[in-house]
């Protein structure tokens, strides 16, 4: 039967075609594919900007003078400063590019830390249950109930005590975001583990006599973490927003330690009323595009993961039927 051979091919596709984002791209079509590609392009743009910032940027992010003297303050875009300069005389273009580096660092640090802790806690608490589970649920609910930005502010004060070097600032932001995000991973993994716990394949491991760690490690972990790439992308955009929010409120990273879009926006607030649009526009756009890109990737993956939300465009359906008829 043709159906059998097709599924066989699909299951034995090379491993790199079965990676999360790539497999999603392959099964998408129409508008959904457009959204996914737009999101991927924006996200890749962020990564490449972060990697190549030192090469592309004409100046350093904390540079307000060069051999020819101090930079002009709040000067409009011209040949030398293509996106103008800020109130402190920094080049807006360079700062926006370097801001991508900070964003990527914070996203990676925050999401990686929260993913490991959240998944581990969710797995153990969901499978073993009992008092540990109850305590963890209450604790996580408490964190959930807290306004996340307020919590992030408190954490950043606790961690960095007002000082903000590059590392300290990034870690302060990352840790504060981590604390806010752990409950999300915890919740998702715990709910999934509780559902899977009643599945016959977990019970069949139990009747064989497998230990709890073996059940969690071999049977639950890989089945419970399927939705994580999705939360990962959505949280990445939220992490960036929290970072920008912290920076905007003045709890972020000092301008001399690293470039940070939220902080620049904060500085640009007074400029806006004076008709100086370039100091706020570009960091703002950077935030919007990055969040948009990450969210588009996340949402498209969400839709594509669910066969009921997945659309097959008419063109693709036609092509498939023709191919099937020819074969």
């Amino acid at each position, binding site marked *: 039967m*043709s*159906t059998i051979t*097709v*599924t*066989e*091919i*699909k*299951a034995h596709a090379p491993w790199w075609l079965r990676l999360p984002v790539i497999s999603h791209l392959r*099964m998408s079509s129409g508008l959904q594919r457009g959204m996914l590609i737009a999101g991927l392009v924006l996200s890749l743009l962020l990564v490449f900007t972060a990697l190549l910032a030192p090469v592309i940027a004409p100046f350093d992010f904390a540079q307000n003078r060069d051999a020819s003297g101090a930079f002009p303050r709040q000067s409009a875009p011209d040949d030398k400063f293509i996106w103008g300069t800020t109130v402190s005389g920094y080049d807006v273009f360079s700062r926006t590019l370097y801001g991508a580096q900070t964003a990527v660092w914070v996203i990676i640090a925050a999401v990686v830390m929260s993913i490991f802790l959240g998944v581990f806690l969710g797995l153990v608490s969901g499978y073993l249950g009992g008092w540990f589970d109850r305590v963890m649920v209450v604790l996580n609910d408490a964190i959930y109930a807290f306004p996340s930005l307020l919590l992030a502010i408190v954490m950043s004060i606790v961690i960095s005590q007002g000082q903000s070097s590059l590392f300290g600032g990034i870690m302060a932001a990352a840790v504060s975001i981590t604390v806010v995000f752990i409950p999300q991973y915890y919740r998702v993994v715990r709910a999934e583990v509780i559902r899977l716990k009643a*599945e*016959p*394949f977990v*019970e*069949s*491991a*139990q*009747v*064989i*006599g*497998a*230990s709890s760690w*073996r059940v969690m490690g*071999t*049977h639950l972990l*890989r*089945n419970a973490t399927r939705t994580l790439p999705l939360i990962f992308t959505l949280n990445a955009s939220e992490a960036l927003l929290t970072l920008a929010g912290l920076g905007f409120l003045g709890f972020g990273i000092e301008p001399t330690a690293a470039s940070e879009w939220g902080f620049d926006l904060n500085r640009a607030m007074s400029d806006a009323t004076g008709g100086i649009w370039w100091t706020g526009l570009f960091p703002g756009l950077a935030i919007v595009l990055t969040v948009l890109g990450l969210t588009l990737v996340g949402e498209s993956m969400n839709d594509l993961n669910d*066969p009921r939300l997945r659309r*097959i465009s008419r063109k693709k*359906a036609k092509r*498939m*039927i023709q*191919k*099937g*008829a020819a074969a």
Partner: protein
Amino acid sequence: MSHTHSEPNQVLSVQDLSIDFVTDSGPVPAVRGVDFSVQPGEILAIVGESGSGKSVTARTALGIMAENGAARGAVYLKGQDMLHASGAQLRRARGRDVSMVFQEPSTALNPVYTVGWQIMEGIRAHNKIGRRQAKARAVEAMRQVGIPDPERRVDYYPHQFSGGQKQRVVIAAALALRPSLIVADEPTTALDVTVQAEILQLLRQVREELGTAIVIITHNMGVVADIADRVIVMNQGLVIEQAKALDLFENPQQDYTRSLLEAVPHLGRSSASKDLESRAHAEKPVLVEARDLSVHYPGRLGAPGFTAVNGVSLEIHAGEVYGLVGESGSGKTTIGRTIAGLNRMTGGSLRVLDYEMADFRERSFKPLREQIGFVFQDPAASFNPQLTIGQCVAEPLNVHRSLGPRETRARVGGLLESVQLPAGYAERYPHELSGGQRQRASLARALALEPKLLIADEPTSALDVSVQAKVLELFLELQQQLGFAALFISHDLAVVDMLASWVGVLLRGELVEEGLGSRVLSAPQHPYTQRLIASLPVPDPREQAKRRALIEQLNLAQ
């Protein structure tokens, strides 16, 4: 191509219908060139195994088509083309001309509305009538399907009804507007046999009183024999045979139909305890001994608990197949799970391999686990989808024996071969195997450590009959070869009779009858067992008519 419009006296006419589904892996043909028609007041059964296209075919009568489906051909319902009808035309026809009864009554009803509201919904969608009038018609519809005290129960919520009564409500909603055709998609599959007999009786009565034509989709040959006037046998999207019910059962024309009929297990034919006079293994050591075993599930705060097993005493001897029969909720699965240490018992005594389960500790029971194998009901769910079949079968070996990878692989290959699967299947993932193959792999896993006791919880109820026959045959063969004792749990009396020499019948947590399989099933003593056996539809219309009379007698006697 041109299609003739249906003759006026046909309710449904399906002409050269083909359906394709577009999936990720390409278009899949589901139905190929199907032709049939339904006369007024006729009961047509469409039988076939899973994936034969019987459901999608019948659903086109209501214009229901999955979003990724594409149909060609023609389907005329009372002269109206249902494949090309607009949304408004379909809405007008549904409920008034044709309606549907679904498989699972508990999911077909919305739990947050009263059943009366749900019956009225269809009435009010088609008629501009007041609430009170609509309710009166809903009460009338409920009375018609035999729900006692409909004036009061019209305001009940679905959870206040039993499964069989819920299905009656679904049928009442389908009948409310007196459609000329009802499509019933496996209407009794989710129900117990005694309830199934009642629902089939109701459908027959509906046809006689209202002259409604019924298209019943089923995989159960017994149901077909019980109710159908005419039968269509489908396989892989094609109509294999179309005949009057009597002709089909007595004189099947096609090989496929014949093999399908042969695969249906018959009560009394090839019974495991055919030539036995007494319990064959009575002398052998006792592996499982239950004395007044009870399992009680505590209720939620304030609510009373539920006693799943109540004072059951039974013994399983070495080398014996013990068949445990009962309807849903009778506690048969709970007993099996308690013996395997998946549930905790709450009263009495249960000794499993000389281990008292009342003092159960996972740590002290673990060494005994390798002597107990377990086969689960749903072969699709009992394998970890992320591991290959080989890794799954090797699980028990990895946990209890420390063999090298090469030796493990050799053992897995041998195990797969013993259940008649090629050793190469070890590299495949569970979803790449068919249901029957998966269940055989599941058997291989349960037997990996050569257990003394195997617990099989409805191992074949999720399988098609032809596949079921092969799996049962294999089970018998392995049991005779390896000589393990087995607790075989099933709701299907015919299957239990084939495998088990000693049979116990459970009713609401109590063991009401126990004895030699052939004796319990041919001369049942307890009235419940009698009813259970009389309700089991047999794939023979003449024999089935006799049984129907017997059920009515039993019902009268009650």
